[in-house]
């Protein structure tokens, strides 16, 4: 019981921290990328197709760091291996 509540507490706090810290970086990065792409399109409207395609691919690359954090947070909350191990140990 003791280790179970400890694991639950640490998992939830860590999941929250993972999302909080892990979304700051990608958010700043994506904001910079979009701002740059908008000014580039404003300067060269003819090249907007190329700029938009590169922007989307770049955004996906940046966003994947946030997605990694999200997947980790989901694993911590819904599929925590330590939690399952101790629940099984407690259940017999």
């Amino acid at each position, binding site marked *: 019981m003791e280790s179970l509540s400890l694991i639950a507490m640490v998992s939830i706090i860590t999941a929250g921290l993972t999302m909080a810290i892990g979304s700051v970086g990608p958010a700043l990065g994506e904001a910079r990328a979009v701002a740059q792409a908008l000014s580039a399109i404003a300067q060269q409207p003819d090249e907007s197709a*190329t700029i938009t395609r590169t922007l*989307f*691919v770049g955004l996906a690359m940046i966003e*994947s760091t946030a*997605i*990694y954090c999200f*997947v980790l947070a989901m694993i911590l909350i*819904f*599929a925590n291996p330590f939690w399952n191990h101790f629940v099984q140990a407690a259940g017999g």
Partner: protein
Amino acid sequence: MIAMSPDDWVLWQWGGFALNATIVFTWLVMAVLVGVSWLVTRRLSSGPELSRWQNALEVLVMGMRDQIAQVARYDPGAYLPFVGTLFLFIAFSNLLAVVPGFRAPTGSLSTTTALALCVFIAVPVFGIVRQGPMQYLRHYVRPTPLMLPFNLIGEISRTVALAVRLYGNIMSGTVLAGILLSLTPFFFPVVMQLLGLLTGMIQAYIFAVLAMVYIASAASVVPGAARGGADVAGDRDDRDDPGDPDRDTNTVLDEEDTKWKASR
């Protein structure tokens, strides 16, 4: 507890053999794609009178050819079957997620890993077919042999990134809809579902474009590739030697590209 992946949703069990939702819906999507294409391409016409479906299919194929050509900068014919299939499969599994009872197979890590492994294998295959094994392997020791471990790690990590990116985006849509349904039912989940459709389409596009970028970077002829190789080997004298085999390959491939560009 929310079923995290369609792998856990077992539709039919027989002995040790479990038929889970991922397999069923993957085959369903494949059957729909193949069936519709077969029905449409049975009666193709090259005259001015087109059937509606043929028109739609032509728009789709031409659009994919254009996109591939823009990324690869040469004839898209060789890459269209592979990259186009990836795009269509992912796009249709994500779009069909609006059908009640359907779980997108791309929301399972096993499906996305399989797709990413296909790309992982396709990159050297296309590279070797286009440039020959030695020229392709030289990519790994460029700019210096010191970069070899980093190039290898990059090869693996981008495969993992491809798989986890698609899985995370689709899975997050499903989980988010599940959580919102229990908090604010009816209206808000529908809005998020619409956003999920957009995300699914963009992810399909991004997966295909990234696959194409990786393939193109392995298959493309780097200007001065022969020079780079000679510099590493330490003999700079045969830079202008017309008998250099790498140079010949480059020239031939360059001519192919120029021809293709001129034909457009």
